[in-house]
């Protein structure tokens, strides 16, 4: 089996340079590649395009990359919870493309799956439809949406093996599997890295073919945005 293991986060992101297009997994702060983001923050790069459902919060996740002005353009579905983001957006310093969440998920999936375009009803009649082909199928209107691909995809899994196979946990799966498939170089960090052969082949969420680099992550903070309990 092909061994994808690398030493650490710094080695993982060493060739990410100015103006790269990145996909970054996660929903809110759940399932984000904390170690890879920390390693990116140590680098002196800018002009990045980030495809990620959210943009982190002011002091965590992609929010820290925005604060450091590494990002030229965000492609996301929801970017609330982030004052620095809002400031850069309103001042015009940051380019932002907002995409319906399902279209984002499917466009990333299409990128990994070699489907250059598909039709979805989301956004018909709204400003999302501007400049896009509209077509009727079975009496309903649909927009044509294009695939999304990235130079590097940064994903985070619960368990992974040296062959690059990944298993996610809970709702931390979210965008990670599709992004893993849509990156030219996919960098996976995992909470627990095991030998190839240790994971049940029937329970793999992301087959290793999609992963070019894998490493054992550390010190996961897993910050909670809305701690809500029942009495």
């Amino acid at each position, binding site marked *: 089996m092909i061994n994808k293991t690398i030493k650490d986060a710094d080695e993982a992101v060493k060739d990410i340079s100015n103006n790269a297009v990145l996909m970054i997994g996660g929903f809110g702060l759940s399932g984000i590649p904390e170690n890879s983001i920390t390693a990116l923050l140590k680098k002196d790069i800018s002009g990045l395009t980030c495809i990620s459902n959210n943009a982190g919060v002011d002091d965590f996740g992609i929010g820290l990359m925005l604060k450091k002005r590494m990002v030229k353009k965000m492609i996301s*579905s*929801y970017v609330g*919870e982030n004052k620095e983001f809002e400031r850069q957006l309103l001042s015009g310093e940051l380019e932002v493309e907002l995409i319906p969440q399902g279209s984002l998920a499917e466009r990333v999936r299409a990128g990994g799956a070699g489907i250059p375009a598909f039709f979805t009803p989301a956004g018909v009649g709204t400003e999302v439809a501007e400049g896009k082909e509209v077509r009727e199928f079975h009496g309903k209107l649909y927009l044509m949406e294009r695939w999304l691909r990235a130079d590097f995809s940064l994903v985070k899994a*619960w368990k992974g093996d040296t062959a690059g196979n990944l298993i996610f946990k809970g*709702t931390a799966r979210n965008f990670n599997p599709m992004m893993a498939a849509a990156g030219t170089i996919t960098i996976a960090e995992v909470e627990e890295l095991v030998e190839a052969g240790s994971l049940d082949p029937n329970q793999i969420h992301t087959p290793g073919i999609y992963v070019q680099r894998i490493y054992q992550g550390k010190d996961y903070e897993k910050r909670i945005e809305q701690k809500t*309990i029942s009495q």
Partner: protein
Amino acid sequence: MLDKNQIAKRIAKEVKNGQYINLGIGIPTLVANYIPNDLEVVLQSENGLLGIGPFPKEDDIDPDLINAGKQTITMTKGSALFSSAESFAMIRGGHVHLTILGAMEVSENGDIANWKIPGKMVKGMGGAMDLVASAENIIVAMQHCSKDGKSKLLKTCSLPITGIKCVKKVVTDLAVLKILPEGGFKLLERAPGISVEEIRSKTEGRLVVEGEVPEMDIQ
């Protein structure tokens, strides 16, 4: 005039046995508290879960288990986890029967606006555009008027819209209204103590009133 919990309580009466339901953030999330125990329904969270349970006890909090509002949650028995692509495949494919969401404006032909106020607020549409373009039944939970007294039930939406001709029913603090296929808000029920005249004066879009309009049952 209903409070948020009463709006949620009234919407809960729309839920049918065996439904898969997506609840939006805000009042819609409260609906879960009022679904009768004898109904078997499954709540979907668009970030990848079927079978949302109650909020966790302090000791059961799992940062890897949140809902679309980023709140910590639990799972019910028989739940399933999946990716965002699979989640929206379910939504787009029409497998989710009922979507309940908030709105800033609804028009008399069923258009909805809830994602953007130009120049003021742009948080993004999240999954709302997919939901309203896909679900067979969409119920909106909202205040009838804005804080400065302007009707939010309009002839046409003034804000950038989220979806066209998709809302089937609106439940506000004043009334339950059905969007007619030919356009117009048909008044189905009044909040206790609220007159048809008051609702008419606070509804900018075409209001259709036929016969006696009963008061809501929010017990």
